Each structure stands twice: as structure tokens, then as C-alpha cells.
């Protein structure tokens, strides 16, 4: 924890090595989160770079994190996703990385056996951006409802509502497609 704090302090002084280390540590997390949100590998790569450049700009103007650096990065990423969809509201391509589809093919329950990755991928894309956001942060990034609420600028109750709606809607979509 102290190492992490020291790393962040050095990054504030634009220490190249510290910034590089932070990038290596957090870029894969941010990339996978962004990929799950925009469903486009190229866009996710570009946005990952943007998030870290924004991080530098924010450090420059003293708009830094108050509680968790990781949560703060996710918040920047969340805002970048909003900007991304504002600029191009049309549906992005639905490419699915090979390794991801293979991992999900392992059967775990009756429901998983029946559901292919593609069906799930398309069903999740039919949820609202906020619902996708909650699921990505809760199940992808393993954050608590409180952390998700901080990142999204909502209260915990609102996140619980979104989570419930997201899962109920996803369930309905999957059941409907199965019929």
C-alpha cells in the first residue's frame, strides 16, 4: 500500500518510470472494462490510452482521486465511454475475441450449457448503457455496490435497482430467444 502511494506521488511529479508502472498495472484492467463496454477492440485500445492521458491532465489540474485510485480510473473510463457513445450512437461491431468465447464454453450449469457466448454477448448489448455499466463493474471488475455507486455518481440504492433490472431484463431476453 505504501509502495502504491509512493508510486502515485512520483506519478504526480511526472516521473516517467512511475507513470509507466501505473500504466502496466492498470491498463489491462481498464482495457478489459472498456472492451466489455464498447465491444470493439480497436476502440477499447484507443480509449485506454485516452483514460491514462486524461489521468495526467487531471493530475496537472489537481483534480485527483479522493478515496481509491483504481475507482478514480474507472470513473474516468466511465466518462470516456459516455463520450464515445455520444459521438457515435450507432451500434458498434460485435466482434468476439477467440480466447474469450472458448473460456465461456465450459459448461457450468444447465443454463450455461444452453447459452452460447454469442447469445449472451448479444443479449447484454441489448441492455441499457447504465445496466451494462453496472454488470461490467459488479461482475467484471468485482467491485462492490458502494464502489460502483461512487464511480457512477449514484447512491447505493440506485445501483441495486439498476442491477436488479439488468439481471431481470437479461433473463427475459435469454428466455425469449430460447423459445
Amino acid at each position, binding site marked *: 500500500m505504501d509502495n502504491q502511494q509512493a508510486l502515485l506521488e512520483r506519478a504526480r511529479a*511526472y516521473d*516517467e518510470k512511475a*507513470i*509507466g508502472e501505473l*500504466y*502496466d498495472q492498470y*491498463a*489491462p484492467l481498464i*482495457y*478489459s472494462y472498456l*472492451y*466489455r463496454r464498447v465491444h470493439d*477492440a*480497436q476502440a*477499447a*485500445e*484507443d480509449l*485506454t*490510452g485516452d483514460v*491514462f*492521458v486524461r489521468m*495526467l491532465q487531471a493530475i*496537472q489540474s489537481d483534480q485527483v482521486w479522493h478515496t481509491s485510485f483504481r475507482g478514480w480510473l474507472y470513473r474516468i473510463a466511465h466518462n470516456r465511454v459516455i463520450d464515445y457513445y455520444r459521438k457515435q450512437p450507432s451500434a458498434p461491431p460485435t466482434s468476439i*475475441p477467440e*480466447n*474469450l468465447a472458448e*473460456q*465461456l464454453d465450459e459448461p*457450468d*450449469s444447465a*443454463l*450455461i450449457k444452453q*447459452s452460447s*457466448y454469442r447469445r*449472451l*454477448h448479444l443479449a*447484454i448489448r441489448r441492455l441499457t448503457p447504465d445496466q451494462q455499466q453496472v*454488470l*461490467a463493474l*459488479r*461482475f*467484471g471488475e468485482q467491485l*462492490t*455496490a458502494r464502489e460502483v455507486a461512487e464511480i457512477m455518481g449514484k447512491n447505493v*440504492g440506485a445501483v*441495486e*435497482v439498476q*442491477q*436488479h433490472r439488468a*439481471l*431481470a431484463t*437479461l*433473463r427475459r431476453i*435469454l428466455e425469449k430467444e430460447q423459445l
Partner: protein
Amino acid sequence: MTMHLEHLLEECLEARSEDNEVILRSYPQQADQLRPLLDTATLARRYYGASLEPPPSGLAGGRARLLAEAARYRKRVAAVPIRPGKARTIRHPFLLRFAAALLAAVIILVSTGAGIAWAARDSLPGDALYPAKLPSRTCVFHWRQTRRQKWDYPCSSLRNGRKSCKP
């Protein structure tokens, strides 16, 4: 009731047990409602939990861009000579404070005067506020631009006491 279910769902998800049926034993009354949601959550966990390795080239590009940006910031910071203790200070703090104090004093004076004038508008000779009424009436009288307006002003101010106003 719905809100209750949403909170129970959150409790179930926080339990983080491998077996949903084990979790549902603690919620026998809501089990039927929670079961499909928890099954879907399991599915979502599998979907989002699958590790997603980014292409190394993509992240290397982002890293290079970030470091270039950091170097630019470093240069910018180095280019500005900063004397110890002088960074981020306002050039004329005394003038700024004086202007702020002056502005505050003007606001207080104007609002106090307006308040007294408003309170004194119906006062009569002998009342405590009557001396404050005279200058304000004189001011208003002088603001009236035409003779007609000047003539009408005392009339309108006396309307409460007299039915007509003839010279």
C-alpha cells in the same frame, strides 16, 4: 416490496457462494423470485469474469503515447521558472482584498438603506422611522422626470390617507 427484493438480491450476490441453492436457503420466502436472478448473475459472472487479454501491440501504443504526454508536461513544468514560495500566489493580494472589502461595504450600505426606506414608507410624523422617510421621498420626487409625474407622486403616496389629491 420491490425495493426489498433488490436489496435481498444484493445480499445474495455479496454472499459469493458457489451454490445458489445454499444462498437461497436463507431466503425461503423469496427463493422463487431470487433463483432466476441469481442464475442469470452466475451467467453474467462467467461472461464478465472470463479473462480478456488485450493485444500487446495495442497497449504498447497507449503506453508510448502516455509517456510522450508525460514528457511534454515535464518540459512545460520545467520551462516555467518557479521561485520557492512564489508559485501559485496572486500578484496583488492587497488590492484584491481591498476591492472585496469595498464591494462588501457597498452591498451592506445599499441593502440597509433600502431596507430602512422600505420600512419607513408608511410612517407618520412623530414615528421613529419618519426622519428616514423624508430623504427617500425627496430622492424619489427628484427622480420623477416630467412635471406630471412630479405632481402625481405626492398623490400616490397619500392614497391611503386621502381620497382625492388636489393642489
